[in-house]
């Protein structure tokens, strides 16, 4: 057996085993269909869907995008077809995937999250939930939850309570916002509420002004910053969060290559997600997986989960 075959790339999150640590981030990949011809979806560790809300959402006014130094702003507004259409139209395709399908759940009220999770508990083909408590885009949206430890703990507890008798229980991953003073306290609140893992980071609030036109580029004025520019923020958040909790931390934010992913793994993440970099280079996830493997072979690390013990 070659060294490479002996490498253990698997990642455990609650009762779920992902077969490798590289996933595609929510919102960058839709529900997978569009990237079919560009990405080997079955070779991914996980696919995190675009947010699902109880009702369909048309999204925010245009323009929704702005180009920034080594990054971008988006104010998509959680545009999605809603829970019913997700189950009827998107889930059948997702069910056929060999990678872990994690449904990103968003809402305006605690009841919204509960409705989505309760309904999806009755459906097969879902590996877990990523709870978006951090989307900075929608008025009265996730931001209030994600910035207040007490609300995060309550929401997670309520979601855990809404889970049925499935065995193994699907992991609840709480996706944290970096737009807080102390991310460690939010991570702890998620853990206290019963989260199986946290993922971080969601986007940072940003604004771009067109000086000539003297107006903001985004119709919503502010949007979420993502891409290479946010990577150092994400790595620091993962470092802090992973030292504050004993549940696994999944890292994302600006990951464009294996080196970026390794920074997150060294900082304490058990797995990573690729978002914005997919837009520039759809092959990024497979290149990262190959690069992480090469690193493990070179350094003589047998299990991907051991990388996080290597930070000096």
């Amino acid at each position, binding site marked *: 057996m070659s060294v490479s075959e002996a490498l253990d790339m698997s990642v455990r999150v609650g009762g779920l085993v992902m077969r490798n640590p590289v996933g595609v981030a929510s919102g960058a990949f839709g529900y997978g269909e569009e990237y079919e011809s560009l990405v080997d979806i079955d070779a991914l560790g996980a696919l995190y869907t675009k947010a699902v809300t109880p009702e369909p959402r048309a999204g925010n006014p245009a323009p*929704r*995008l702005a180009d920034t130094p080594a990054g971008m702003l988006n104010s998509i507004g959680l*545009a999605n077809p809603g829970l019913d259409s997700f189950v009827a139209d998107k889930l059948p395709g997702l069910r056929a995937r060999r990678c872990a399908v994690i449904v990103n759940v968003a809402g305006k009220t605690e009841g919204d999250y509960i409705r989505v999770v309760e309904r999806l508990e009755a459906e097969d083909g879902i590996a877990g939930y990523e709870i978006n408590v951090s989307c900075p885009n929608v008025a009265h949206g996730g931001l209030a939850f994600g910035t207040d430890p007490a609300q995060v703990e309550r929401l997670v507890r309520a979601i855990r309570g809404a889970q049925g008798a499935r065995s193994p229980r699907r992991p609840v991953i709480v996706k944290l916002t970096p737009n807080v003073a102390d991310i460690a306290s939010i991570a702890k609140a998620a853990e206290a509420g019963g989260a199986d893992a946290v993922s971080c980071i969601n986007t940072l609030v940003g604004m771009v002004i067109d000086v000539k036109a003297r107006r903001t580029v985004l119709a919503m004025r502010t949007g979420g910053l993502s891409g290479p520019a946010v990577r150092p923020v994400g790595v620091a958040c993962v470092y802090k969060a992973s030292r504050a909790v004993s549940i696994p931390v999944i890292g994302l934010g600006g990951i464009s290559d294996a080196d970026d992913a390794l920074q997150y793994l060294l900082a304490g993440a058990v797995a990573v997600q690729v978002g914005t970099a997919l*837009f*520039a280079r759809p092959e990024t996830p497979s290149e990262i997986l190959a690069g992480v493997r090469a690193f493990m072979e070179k350094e003589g690390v047998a299990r991907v989960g051991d990388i996080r013990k290597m930070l000096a």
Partner: protein
Amino acid sequence: MKRIDTTVRSIRKVAEGYFELRFAWELPDNGDPVIGDPVIGDPVIGDPAIGNPAIGNPAIGNPAIGAPSIGGHVNGGHAGDDSPAPGRFVTIRAGGRYDPALRRPFAFSDYSPDAREAAIVFQLRGRGTAFLADLKPGDPLDVLGPLGKGFGSPPRSTRPVLVAGGIGIGPMLYLASALAARADAGLGEAPTLAMGFRSAAYVPGLPLPPGAVVCTDDGSYGYEGTVADYLAGYDPGLPPAFYACGPAPMMAAVGRLAAARRAPYEAAVEQWMACGVGACAGCAVPLKSGAFVRACADGPVLDGDLVDWEASL
């Protein structure tokens, strides 16, 4: 669609601030990219992901004027189809490893199956296009495409009236030559092309189809005034079918002309893009109905009558 690492064949300045970039592009062996089968019975545009109800197929002419011809057809192109048809586009990586993070979209301005070569005409705007303008023949080029939905064929016995402004010249020159070839083959009426520029310096040094009308705001070349001014007094001889690509005010003006003449109007829209493939809902184009469609996947060619040009201005 695919992402390919190709090479620059040539780059040249064609007008003040405008460049033509030609690059190697191989088509799979599935026939002629331009005159293909009719694209009728395409699914309705719009994805429930951005809350759009069925709004009809933009690549098919206005039924009030007549059904699309079933003979030879300008291939509208669609996802999964690799033909670089007029109106479709590519996204190009225009910079270094991390920056800009987003690819830049450009419409095909030409495709030559013999030379296995495609082209775009672009306007210098910012850092991405500045990077492209500095490329040299033989340089590597990272291209993703063909993307989006192209133009449909004009309804029978209509005069295709093509209108171009600014960055719209590339796709409209390409469409004009495709429609002219189609007319030569007896499959439709010859198109007319009207193009608007600020002044003579901006008129591209590209082969223009016979009868093309150039309008300049300052009258330094051709007709003095906007293309809309020109078209208001133009008699196409036949019921017109409008095709346009350019700045929003021009697109809105063509929309008013088309409405006044009850003519079909295929509009190639421009909206900033992130993924370019329909996955992120970033490139939303507002419709008069209040819904949004994705410029990259439902368009860029849309039924111009449905687009809310005011909200796009």
